[in-house]
């Protein structure tokens, strides 16, 4: 399905011959399309950190820009098209809903390069990338189980799409690896960003006995709710320690910096290809933010060890035996789930209390 034609290599070879100094020619124009305002934490903010890292690392060799808060409906295609028509050479579209618009525009601009985050449609000049956030979630589950007294966790989640379900399941599996009785309660908010609803969901979960709460939503209100109520939280997307100085244990963070720098270097060096990247702990795309002072040394060591094992590939979050909520075996002992099945996940593991 992937076509890896090397047409793009030809002009690139000429660039290389001219010398390695990127800045000698006109800067590579790079644009980012964001689904929400940048803010100071969350999905878009992490991509913006990547853009800033790109600027810092590449200097005059690149000229980056962004458009924020672009709706996923009919507007996306116009924005992407305008960016391409305005002379941007490499365009990153950072939300799933941009998939078909990006594909359409990529078809109209064969000389430009496009990268779409979290989608699955590719073309000669359209690459895709995402990260195995669930790997960090698994380690977070281990941490949660070690810090919890009740063994009941709260999970504020946006929508039951595979990426979110992977996180909930991996978190629960991680927790159950140290406390087989651990349970995760899920509340859906049906919104990626709704501080009020996220807050209400967090309060409900805390009232229901959860003493570590986490979230797969975009605001900082879950960490804030936990701080006020005096229970622990594990944040998502960005480091949110300033919103939970006493209680936010860590955060499962996204890190696109190295990926963006590598892809831009490939584009400058002529080695850019339309590939599908699904990095994880190993690639540094998902990480844990620095631990809270409340986390004892022994637990830090254990969780660091889990992260290291995942990074080394010796521990797989979705290794069998895994049963679903009804007790039906989904992965046999000694087996690990295939990437395709992980990518399409649409069920809960045993230990999750909630409905999809």
């Amino acid at each position, binding site marked *: 399905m992937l076509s890896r034609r090397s047409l793009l290599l030809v002009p690139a070879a000429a660039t290389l011959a001219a010398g390695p100094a990127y800045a000698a020619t006109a800067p590579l124009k790079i*644009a980012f399309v964001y689904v929400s*305002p940048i803010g100071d934490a969350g999905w878009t903010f992490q991509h913006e950190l990547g853009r800033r890292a790109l600027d810092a690392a590449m200097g005059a060799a690149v000229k980056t*820009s*962004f*458009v*924020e*808060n*672009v*709706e*996923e*409906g*009919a*507007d996306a*295609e*116009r*924005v992407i098209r*305008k*960016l391409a028509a*305005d002379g941007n050479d490499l365009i990153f579209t950072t939300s*799933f*809903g941009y998939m*078909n618009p990006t594909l359409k525009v990529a078809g109209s601009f064969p000389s430009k390069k496009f990268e779409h985050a979290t989608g*699955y449609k590719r073309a000669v000049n359209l690459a895709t990338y995402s990260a195995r956030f669930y790997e960090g979630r698994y380690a977070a589950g281990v941490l949660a189980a070690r810090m919890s007294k009740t063994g009941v966790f709260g999970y504020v989640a946006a*929508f*039951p*799409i*595979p990426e979110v379900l992977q996180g909930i399941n991996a978190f629960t599996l991680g927790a159950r690896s140290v406390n087989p009785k651990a349970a995760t309660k899920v509340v859906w908010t*049906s919104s990626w960003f709704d501080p009020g609803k996220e807050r209400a969901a967090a309060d409900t979960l805390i009232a229901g006995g959860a003493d570590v709460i986490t979230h797969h939503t975009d605001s900082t209100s879950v960490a804030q709710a936990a701080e006020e109520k005096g229970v622990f939280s594990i944040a998502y997307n960005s480091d949110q320690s300033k919103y939970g100085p006493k209680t936010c244990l860590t955060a499962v963070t996204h890190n696109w910096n190295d990926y963006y720098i590598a892809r831009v270097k490939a584009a400058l060096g002529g080695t850019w290809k339309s590939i599908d990247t699904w990095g994880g702990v190993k690639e540094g795309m998902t990480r844990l933010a620095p631990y809270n002072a409340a986390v004892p040394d022994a637990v830090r060591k254990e969780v660091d060890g889990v992260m290291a094992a995942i990074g080394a590939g010796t521990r797989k979050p979705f290794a069998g035996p895994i049963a679903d909520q009804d007790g039906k075996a989904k992965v046999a002992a000694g087996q690990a789930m295939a990437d395709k099945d992980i*990518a*399409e*996940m*649409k069920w809960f593991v045993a230990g999750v209390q909630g409905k999809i």
Partner: protein
Amino acid sequence: MAVLAPVLAPVLAPVLAVVLAALGAALLFAALGRDPLACLHTLFIAPLADRNGWSELALKATPLLLCAIGIAVGVRANVWNIGAEGQFTMGAIAGGATALVLGPAGGWYVLPLVLLAGIAGGAAWGGVAALLRTRFNAHEILVTLMLSYVAIQVLGWLVRGPMQDPEGFNFPQSRLFDPSALLPALFEGGRVTVAAVFAVLTVPLGALLLGRTVMGYRLRVVGLAPGAARYAGFSERGAVWFCLLLSGGLAGLAGICEVAGPIGQLMPSISPGYGFAGIIVAFLGRLQPVGIVFASLLMALLYLGGESLQITQQLPLAATGVIQGMLLLFLLAADVLTLYRPRWVRRRAHG
């Protein structure tokens, strides 16, 4: 001149408001360290520099116009449809379902049925509010607004459940519609579809309805003088039903034209709030169909210009929001000042 004033003022006031907003925007751009003239050019002129720009403007204005015309007819009869967003969504769902079912078979009949289903879906959603109003006296402002959120949740459930693309890796989206269910583009290479023609047609039809028909007369009487309307035997229930079905149908048409047009599939977010923006457009256009045309074009231009400001001038989105706010403020202020003359009155001491 004094004779002309009542005629000219309603025309000149919005022009003055736009000029004032442009001046305010220029100050803002200067304060942000940009070249004000270049930014104004980017905001108001650059988006219309080529044929594609006009096509995008018409594409963006179409759903605003369709929603606003229906809302305006309702407000004239004192029926407040705040939930065009929900009717828009229901129209997209009903039409989209038709497209997904009939599309694969192809045939000329698919698209007309898709459009009719869209209109019916929106009208039905408006009809729910009409039923609750006429039967249980539940006010339509609240009901239509709340039904919007219901519709959006229904769409979210459908694209994660029954209408989910089986080959879509469980992402929340439907299959792409078949070409037979898609609206044809007005010209090669542009995205604007025949939906723009539908929208333009509603303008003379709306004007005709309000100005030249008995129904329109009744609606206006119900709106302006409910007591007189009752005395004349004009049914308020009839007006409620008519307005909500009409505005719901038009919003539904807008919805299906978006998903069977530039989007091409059902997905959780199909509208950046066209139904709600339609309320602003209806009032900016003074509830007159022709005024609404200008208002929807202006709103659309602000959207496009705001994007351009981000892309070419690297201005934050919030700057566009400030300019939009200034424009609305000046327009409303101009309205007030054409209708009323403020006088400074010295407070007298009461003796």
